[in-house]
């Protein structure tokens, strides 16, 4: 046991970062679990959604902790194999070495669980304050330590440490003392260039990029996005492991390029370095990409919350109903106006129309309805028809149309020619409109979408009968009444309540939505996502930092002897420094550059996905992405500077 403590102290340089990681992981996991069950959150209107998200995030942290702690631990074990060999030679049995290992892990576990839980509990209040601040919720006072969170955390990490003990003991038992002593000094084989894997990597990354660039329909984007992500991860991994070596070997074949002082040492060094570190670099690249995407999307959703609300609710208060007869429509109008008057507010930007909407399959200028078709395809089109009367009132115009004429407004998509056919029923396009009253985008646009103005309700019915002759369940048009109000939140919320009741009396299929009433749940959803984005972003950054740090140390020990030799053969100290710099820099920034390329290619498909989530402000997202990349890069450079210093001190 005493030996175990001494060992830990002796290996502080590599061991302290490991301990800090354990503590960090525990703090994060505890806090997620804590927030998922915290009583304070119960006061939120949409607490269940938030709790679910938080619990999911805790799950992500758990999985990540397992992988990551194992990774760092195996790194530590590899470094220390020599020491174990020495113990063995000094007459210690493997049993004893194993016992030391167990003690070490127990001490680590105790230290990190103690510090982690304590830190987690201390930080939990801060976390909940932060979360409430983000989701714009009143803060309550009080402090709680949920037993379940503590138990979960302790159980998870005891489990992880137990697995680590088993792994370590297995490692020691399996090894032979001579191997233990020699581990690290055995001449390494030069890695082979695996062209097949490199080609697979390039192909899968290429197809991932192709998918990302060519996906137009946001609905189709979702499943394809995951395919692209998986392809990109595979591609990154293969390119880093096989592609890099293949490329370097190709460079080495070019004699005049290779036999130059500034290429000679880096290329040959990198071939070896890549073998050991390619997987780690691929991980860093994937993690960096994940961090940047996660942060930029959640930040832009949070920042763009007002936009989002506006897109989702084009007017502050919207009353909609389906299958409304003319009679009912008049009653609804009257009821709404009465409530507005009763609330004593002044409605603005009022839009009122009745429409008919169809989900159709578009083929050129022809539209059909097929209920059994796949509605994820790119030929799905939403068609909304309103009458000329409503259009004139809405736009303040006096357009008159013949029975076979229509005005077309294209929200997204394209209709060629001058005639539209609805399953045979033809309308000629009299004019293509460039603006549309309700808003440029009526709601979140996830597919092709067109708005048509026809002369009267009879024409509407003709279209309907032609498209869906056997649909008998509608006896009226859809109803839309939206307006903006300026008033404080309470007034708006109560008005929405009153309207809801009034509308229900007229038509049971009516819905009343208010942006203000939805704001809370929007905040708790997107705020929660934002919070988790930051949280997981931090975790991933921590992981990246640690991988990089360990990489530098490992490389430093490997390179020390190499650079000593080079100095003896006639390389000046400055040249050595220069070489180290160029080598470390390229290894270090390769993943970051690759991550940025990934993000550039993913940009389009992510904006499509954000459209599904009602965020249509591409510029905002672009800004958030750029800012996130910048912040991340600054962080990355700082880590680089810090670890490079450790590296230099090891090498020289």
């Amino acid at each position, binding site marked *: 046991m005493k030996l175990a403590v001494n060992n830990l102290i002796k290996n502080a340089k590599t061991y302290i970062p490991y301990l800090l990681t354990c503590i960090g992981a525990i703090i994060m996991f505890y806090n997620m679990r804590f927030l998922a069950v915290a009583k304070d959150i119960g006061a939120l209107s949409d607490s269940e959604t938030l709790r679910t998200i938080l619990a999911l995030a805790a799950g992500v942290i758990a999985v990540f902790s397992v992988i990551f702690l194992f990774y760092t631990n195996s790194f530590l074990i590899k470094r220390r194999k020599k020491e174990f060999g020495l113990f063995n030679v000094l007459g210690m049995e493997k049993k004893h070495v194993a016992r030391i290992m167990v003690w070490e892990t127990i001490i680590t576990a105790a230290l990190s669980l103690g510090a982690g839980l304590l830190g987690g509990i201390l930080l939990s209040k801060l976390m909940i304050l932060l979360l409430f601040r983000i989701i714009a919720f009143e803060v309550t006072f009080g402090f709680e330590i949920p037993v379940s969170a503590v138990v979960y955390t302790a159980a998870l990490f005891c489990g992880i440490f137990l697995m680590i003990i088993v792994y370590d003991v297995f490692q020691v038992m399996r090894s032979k003392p001579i191997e233990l002593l020699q581990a690290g000094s*055995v*001449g*390494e*084989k*030069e890695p082979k260039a695996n062209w097949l894997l490199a080609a697979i990597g390039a192909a899968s990354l290429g197809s991932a990029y192709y998918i990302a660039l060519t996906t137009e329909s946001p609905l189709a984007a979702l499943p394809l996005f995951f395919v692209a992500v998986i392809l990109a991860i595979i591609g990154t991994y293969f390119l880093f492991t096989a592609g890099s070596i293949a490329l370097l070997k190709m460079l080495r074949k070019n*004699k*005049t390029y290779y*036999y*130059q*002082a500034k290429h*000679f040492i880096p290329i*040959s*060094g990198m*071939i*070896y370095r890549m073998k050991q570190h390619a997987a780690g670099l691929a991980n860093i690249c994937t993690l960096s990409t994940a961090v940047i995407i996660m942060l930029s999307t959640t930040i832009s959703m949070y920042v763009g919350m007002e936009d989002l609300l506006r897109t989702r609710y084009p007017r502050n208060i919207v009353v909609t109903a389906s299958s409304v007869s003319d009679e009912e429509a008049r009653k609804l109008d009257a009821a709404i106006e009465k409530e507005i008057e009763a609330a004593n507010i002044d409605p603005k930007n009022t839009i009122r129309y009745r429409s008919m909407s169809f989900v159709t399959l578009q083929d050129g200028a022809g539209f059909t309805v097929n209920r059994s078709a796949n509605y994820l395809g790119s030929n799905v089109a939403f068609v909304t028809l309103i009458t000329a009367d409503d259009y004139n009132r809405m736009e303040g115009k006096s357009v008159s149309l013949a029975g076979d004429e229509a005005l077309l407004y294209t929200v997204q998509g394209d209709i060629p020619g001058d005639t539209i056919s609805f399953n045979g029923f033809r309308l000629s396009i009299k004019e293509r409109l460039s603006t549309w009253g309700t808003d440029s985008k009526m709601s979140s646009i996830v597919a092709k979408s067109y708005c048509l103005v026809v002369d009267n309700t009879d024409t509407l019915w003709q279209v309907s009968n032609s498209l869906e002759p056997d649909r008998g369940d509608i006896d009226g048009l859809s109803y839309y009444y939206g307006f903006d109000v300026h008033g404080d939140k309470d007034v708006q919320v109560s008005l929405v309540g009153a309207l809801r009741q009034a509308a229900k009396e007229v038509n049971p299929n009516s819905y009343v939505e208010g942006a203000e009433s939805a704001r809370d749940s929007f905040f708790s959803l997107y705020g929660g996502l934002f919070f988790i984005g930051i949280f997981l972003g931090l975790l991933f950054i921590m992981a990246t930092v640690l991988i990089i740090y360990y990489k530098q140390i490992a490389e430093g020990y490997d390179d020390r002897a*190499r650079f000593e*030799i*080079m*100095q*003896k*053969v*006639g*390389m*000046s*100290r*400055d*040249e050595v420094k220069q070489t180290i710099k160029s080598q470390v820099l390229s290894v270090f920034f390769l993943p970051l550059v690759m991550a940025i390329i990934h993000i550039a290619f993913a940009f389009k498909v992510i904006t499509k996905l954000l459209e599904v989530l009602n965020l249509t402000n591409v510029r905002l997202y672009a800004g958030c992405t750029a800012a996130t990349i910048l912040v991340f890069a600054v962080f990355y450079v700082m880590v680089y500077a810090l670890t490079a210093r450790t590296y230099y001190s090891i090498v020289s």
Partner: protein
Amino acid sequence: MPLLKVIDLKKVYTTRFGGHPVQALANVSFTVEQGEFVAVMGESGAGKTTLLNIIAGFDKPTSGDVLLNGKSIVSIDEKEMSAFRRDNLGFVFQDFNLLDTFSIKDNILLPLVLAGQSYREMNERLMPIAKKLRITDILEKFPYEVSGGQKQRTAIARALITKPKLVLADEPTGALDSHASSDLLRLFNQINAEGQTILMVTHSVRNACHAQRVLFIKDGEVFHQLYKASLSNEEMYQKISDTLTLIATGGVRNE
């Protein structure tokens, strides 16, 4: 003018926390003529390695000077030193000091690459040397794939490829078996016969008896020197052994 002139060399190591200063070299002077093969002998701790490090420019003496072709090595600063070392000195180390990331060929070419030679020039120089050292067929292999003797021959090729004025060898056979050792020393003799000046540090009598002249260092001073002249290896071996015995038993200087 001698190729190498070592004048009143003194080196004192002081430990950092004010411990006793250790004198590695007290007062060493000797010269090496162009085309000589000189061995430096002495027991462990006699200052052999310190001497070699100073001549190589890895270390600075406390006082004294080292002249190579009349130019002082001691006064060259660190920046020029590496270029100077590259152009004038060749090294053969006990543990080969080959880079495991380079093929045998690239290891040999390393100094030329650092000096910025063209690839054609490198190849022209490489081939005759590789042939002489019998490593032509392992050029594309990597250090971990070849034997100790082959590694050391590679190191010699690396030392010779810059056509140095002086080759410094530090216990070149220390990590080799006896067969590979005598093979290597025959190579040294061959190279030396072609006009290459060699200074070798060793404590092996078998190695030293291949040299034309043997310097003995004791307690940081040149204690004695022996010329081989026309003696056979066996006779030289006997003389060296006698001298070593004398040193070991603490005898007075043998005139």
